[in-house]
């Protein structure tokens, strides 16, 4: 069985694949950044319960949570050029069909995260007792002051563990981006395998990188949570 797995090739693969981790992390960074910003807006909008908008948001969230990310990615990839192609062509002279697929994948990730993080933020805000808001108001603060000084700091505390789990989930999800031709770790492992005829080592390297980064992220969030807890208690 030794011929399937050579430790020399394994070591070689580490150097060949590790640089592509940056691509995965980039996707994580952008989708978390924009996802978080949009999600805060989504959470606040949903808490306001504006008719019609509320129903639209519920459908949006249900769709994002109820359909596979791979399908969402492909819909973004094929759908965005069809819907916005002419507009972008005439306005900016950009041919959307020529854009790198990582852009469409990232858009799908961002929309997906908006829904997931939005629900995390909303439930975290709801988890803060009403009396906290009331106390803020009776002290004479405005609603906005109460939200930013009293409610949100407590809500963030509730949200952080869920945010951590979600972040690791996004990192894992980047492993499906290669199906649309994004040049990241999986894609690299695949092409290296095709060129040499030995594929297994490459994917083992990918799996190990995923494990290590996941553990590091998990550890970081545990630390953050502990730090916040000792500050409080």
């Amino acid at each position, binding site marked *: 069985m030794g011929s399937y797995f050579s430790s020399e090739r394994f070591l070689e693969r580490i150097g060949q694949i590790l640089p592509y981790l940056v691509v995965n992390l980039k996707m994580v960074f952008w989708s978390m950044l924009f996802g978080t910003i949009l999600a805060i807006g989504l959470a606040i909008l949903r808490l306001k319960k504006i008719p019609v908008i509320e129903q639209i948001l519920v459908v949006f969230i249900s769709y994002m949570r109820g359909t*596979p990310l791979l399908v969402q990615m492909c819909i973004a990839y094929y*759908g965005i050029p069809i819907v916005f192609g002419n507009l972008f062509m005439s306005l900016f002279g950009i041919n959307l069909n020529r854009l790198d697929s990582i852009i469409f994948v990232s858009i799908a990730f961002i929309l997906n995260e908006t829904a997931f993080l939005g629900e995390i933020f909303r439930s975290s805000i709801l988890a803060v007792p009403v009396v906290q808001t009331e106390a803020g108001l009776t002290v004479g603060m405005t609603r906005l002051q109460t939200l930013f000084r009293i409610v949100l700091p407590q809500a963030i505390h509730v949200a952080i563990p869920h945010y951590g789990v979600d972040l690791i989930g996004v990192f894992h*999800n980047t492993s499906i981006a290669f199906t649309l031709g994004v040049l990241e770790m999986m894609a690299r492992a695949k092409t290296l395998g095709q060129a040499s005829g030995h594929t297994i080592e490459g994917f083992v390297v990918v799996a190990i990188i995923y*494990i290590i980064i996941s553990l590091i992220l998990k550890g970081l969030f545990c630390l953050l949570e502990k730090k916040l807890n000792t500050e409080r208690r």
Partner: protein
Amino acid sequence: MEFNYSYFVTSFKQALLYTPVTLKILFVTFTVSFVLGILIGAIRFYKVPFLSKFFSAFVTVYMGIPIMVALVLYNLVFLTCYTDFANFFHISKKINEIDQIVIAYVALIASNTCSMSEITRGGFRSVDKVQFEAGYTIGLTKFQTFRRIIFPQMLPVISPGLLNLLIGMLKSTNLVSTIGIMEIMVASLYPCQETYSYLEGYLAAALMYWIIGIAIENLGHLVEHYSDKYRKKPI
């Protein structure tokens, strides 16, 4: 290129045809990982020597591997190693006689069992210690206490987590398409290979998944409501 409604309908019909396949994968994965998950959760909760340490390390590490990576890796190992493996153990089945869905099950079940064991462990912890002791004091064995007292009390606590996991599982069955197994998405893309218009196929698949997801969610809430009955206090 424009959206073509009749392509969409054709794709959706194909998706409908293969819905039972996806549901079967989902059902098998859920059932097996539920049983294994409870087992591992119990081993970790009751601190069975050696095994509990082993599984706690295994779950922590294995949960770092994305299902997609596991799926591709296992498939690869299967394709390259099976023939030698079969020869070595004198297994007469040829590689093309084995359904690749086995690989899919291994990858899906392994990952989901890990998540499931985390959920059930949380469930064990949520039950008051006195409940265990009360069971033992009336002479029930550990297993009897678990089955008659602890498990029914765990269920309402873990059911929201189970429901979330089940929806996640449904979505993860979609990934098996990458190793060439027919399921909803592959089926709905089938007509697209003639029309070269893929958007309709993906939208049809999305709609099908969405419908199943909503159905599972509503069914789950019904079960939750039922299993939560004893906790409602008369006030």
